[in-house]
């Protein structure tokens, strides 16, 4: 839609257009106007912004704090960024978590890092840091003195209550309130952080009634490394090393996003061969990620034999990676302007062999696992996620495609060389664990198809551009989204023209997934909670960053 600002002015919302140079329209709005505007943006038929793709907290120094909301409409395909400013000392913004459920965790994250309190948000606990942490680390005036936050030697006392902030309508003062999370006599079990089925150090507090799950409360942050904060003190080429350590199963795709974001900001046109190499590596990453998904899914359901099948074949991809990049899990391969080195001389031959090999073993996977009656009964109609819920929770990638949501960025907003390739977006309609499983198994076939085309089309030429050793991005805000193995991975960079980024934000593919676990698993059994978690296929370092 053109001229959104004018349309909103007509609707009675005073907002100003910011940064006219940006290709995505950015509107600034006052906090008190924001709830009404948000509801209008969500419900107006011509706008229909149903997807809050991510929220970014910003510290603008003297000007105070602000939050960027990046909205997208699946129906109309348009994007809008809303910037809400607030005061530094009394940082308060009304919540939008009732409109977009993905804001439930995102607002907690911003509260955790910036201290912005979201009024009427049902659960304003810190998300990543301990409840007794002093200060808000992503504020520019944060005091990192270790004496303020010594390394704790005792376990955190988990609170049974959730603080809520309201605004008093008469006085305008903020009042606090508490929601009760668990009753005194509830049977609450900790699943995680040290648990075989949480795929890392994720912590679910689960309230049980016999075998039934009543409520799941997610605790993140056990592997929080402050990667976004670290980026602020690293030069752009240095920040690249950190993306591989987010979702380590989509290492290539994550780094692809960051490199592409920086290249777009610099206006670099990278060589075609480099683009093909990136696409090949992205698809290989996707296959190995889905193979690992298959393995862990089987293992969580107690099938240990198929677990080894997945790992056996994933090993072959890791060997391909190792030949060219030297790394197996963490490859550090994409660079600003291309890739770090040309493909290994044997790479194309070996990859072609692999593409022929994998379809011969996949039927075995289905024989031993997919077609098993126990598997079908345990996964069908378990953890149902509708398309609307998937959009609201911000779920993307295979988990959303299992609910029939067409959200493949390779199709929606083709990047790299994906517009030159033939492939289908795998869609299932039912949205249960079985469909989430099937989507990934089918995506392996689609990725093989893509690889086949990529290998035949790959041109000769340079694998990288020569770039200056010191990279400074022009002032501005830059977004880049790619389709990682488990959904939409986004990079946001705010540059002030320095050699260091002013603020970097990575849109996690996994955070929306764990946000939906309570909804998906409540009312099912403990065993189903594990299957739901496995079918969502989150990677914890990507959630915690």
């Amino acid at each position, binding site marked *: 839609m053109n001229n959104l600002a004018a349309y909103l002015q007509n609707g009675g919302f005073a907002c100003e257009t910011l940064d006219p140079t940006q290709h995505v329209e950015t509107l600034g709005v006052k906090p008190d106007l924001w709830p009404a505007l948000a509801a209008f943006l969500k419900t107006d038929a011509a706008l229909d912004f149903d997807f809050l793709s991510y929220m970014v907290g910003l510290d603008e120094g003297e000007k105070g704090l602000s939050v960027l909301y990046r909205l997208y409409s699946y129906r109309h395909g348009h994007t809008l960024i809303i910037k809400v400013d607030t005061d530094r000392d009394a940082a308060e913004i009304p919540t939008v978590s009732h409109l977009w459920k993905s804001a439930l965790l995102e607002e907690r994250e911003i509260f955790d890092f910036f201290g912005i309190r979201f009024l009427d948000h049902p659960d304003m606990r810190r998300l990543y840091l301990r409840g007794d942490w002093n200060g808000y680390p992503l504020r520019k005036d944060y005091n990192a003195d270790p004496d303020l936050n010594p390394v704790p030697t005792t376990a955190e006392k988990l609170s049974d209550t959730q603080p809520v902030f309201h605004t008093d309508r008469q006085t305008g003062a903020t009042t606090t309130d508490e929601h009760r999370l668990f009753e005194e006599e509830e*049977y609450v079990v900790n699943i995680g952080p040290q648990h075989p089925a949480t795929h890392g150090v994720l912590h679910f507090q689960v309230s049980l009634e016999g075998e039934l799950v009543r409520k799941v409360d997610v605790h993140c942050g056990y592997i929080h490394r402050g990667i976004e904060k670290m980026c602020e003190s690293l030069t752009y080429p240095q920040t690249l090393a950190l993306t591989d350590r987010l979702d380590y199963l989509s290492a290539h795709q994550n780094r692809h996003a960051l490199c592409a974001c920086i290249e777009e900001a610099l206006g670099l046109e990278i060589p075609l061969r480099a683009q093909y190499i990136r696409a090949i590596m992205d698809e290989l990453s996707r296959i190995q990620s889905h193979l690992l998904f298959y393995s862990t899914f089987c293992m969580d359901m107690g099938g240990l034999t198929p677990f080894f099948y997945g790992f056996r074949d994933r090993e072959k991809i890791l060997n391909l990676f190792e030949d060219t990049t030297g790394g197996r899990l963490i490859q550090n391969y994409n660079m600003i302007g291309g890739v770090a080195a040309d493909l290994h001389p044997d790479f194309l031959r070996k990859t072609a062999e692999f593409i022929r090999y994998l379809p011969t073993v996949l039927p075995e996977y289905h024989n031993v696992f997919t077609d098993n009656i126990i598997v079908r009964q345990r996964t069908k109609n378990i953890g149902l996620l509708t398309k609307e819920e998937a959009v609201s929770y911000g779920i993307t990638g295979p988990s959303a495609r299992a609910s029939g949501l067409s959200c493949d960025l390779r199709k929606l907003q083709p990047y790299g060389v994906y517009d030159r390739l033939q492939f289908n977006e795998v869609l299932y309609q039912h949205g249960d664990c079985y469909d989430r499983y099937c989507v990934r198994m089918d995506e392996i076939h689609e990725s093989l198809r893509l690889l086949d085309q990529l290998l035949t089309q790959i041109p000769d030429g340079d694998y990288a551009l020569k770039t200056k050793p010191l990279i400074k991005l022009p002032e501005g805000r830059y977004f880049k989204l790619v389709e990682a193995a488990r959904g939409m991975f986004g990079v946001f960079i705010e540059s002030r023209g320095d050699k260091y980024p002013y603020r970097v934000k990575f849109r996690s593919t996994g955070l929306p997934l764990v946000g939906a676990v309570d909804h998906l698993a409540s009312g099912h*059994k403990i065993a189903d909670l594990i299957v739901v978690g496995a079918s969502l296929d989150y990677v914890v370092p990507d959630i915690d960053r």
Partner: protein
Amino acid sequence: MFDFASVTGWIDGFLRSHLSSALSFFIECVLIGLTILVAYAVIALIMILAERKVCAAFQCRRGPNRVGPWGLFQTVADMVKILTKEIMEINHVDRFLYNLAPFVVIIASVLAFSCIPFAKGLQVLDFNVGVFFMMAVSSIGIVGILLAGWSSNNKFSMIGAMRSGAQMISYELSIGLSLLTIVVLSGTMQLSEIVEAQNDLWFIFKGHIPAFIAFVVYLVAGTAETNRGPFDLPEAESELTAGYHTEYSGMHFGFYYVAEFVNAFIVASLATTLFLGGWMPLHIPGWDGFNAAMDYIPSILWFFGKTALMIFILMWFKWTFPRLRVDQLLTLEWRYLLPLNLCNLLVMVAVVACGWHF
């Protein structure tokens, strides 16, 4: 056919001719105890090694292959290792029950173990209510697991023990009814007589259709009874970390581990004894030459060969199927196996009453 009774008789005679009757009685008791102890431990070690080798074969791996030729001594090394592991003191457990539980589990397992007729004349306990006795002692094991889960004061243990209780009592019925089917056919509950009764033909052939159904039901229920996959819900690793033995460490945990494997052996050997003739060689009525040739193979080989086959089938189950969910588990028993078993029992009675068996 070699009869082990001659060996035991010779030892008895030898002792009595040299020592007083009370002393020789005492020495015999000690010898029996030692034999059981060694056999129990050795079979546990072999079972664990076999499990690891078989599962490795299913999973495109080699399994243990470093300690000794083909990794044969791996489990011996593991046993030494587990002995050197600290037995931790856990706060807030019900100390008496917590320490009692491994005893209960092992006593149940050893009692059932000593009922098995390993070969002709090689059986420790031979009650005339043998089958019934086996059922009775195997249900003592449930008490041990429930005690372990309850006394640990751990939520995972508690849920695991609850699951285990429900699972084992449910499948106890199927085991009981399928054993009953064979008792109807054999007309005795004494295990040695049951084996002797299969002299002309094994019961699985003799009782044809109902015996075969009972055999399949017994294998399924037996797998569930020993908490082996796909019925390993009480210790479902991906759900309850380690289930009822979460709080046990070192050798304390080792007892559960060993008992689990020996129980699998007991289930397999009981299947062998009741359905496949135990140590009885394959005899076919009328084929005298063939029967005589079969008798040349020692009875102990027959027993262990058939049991190994049964164990392989149990392992095949475990490494193929994913775990059931608790409601599926109970549905399988109460809606399918139990009615099937009751009908099967009646069919067997009809077969026996009308003389339709071989």
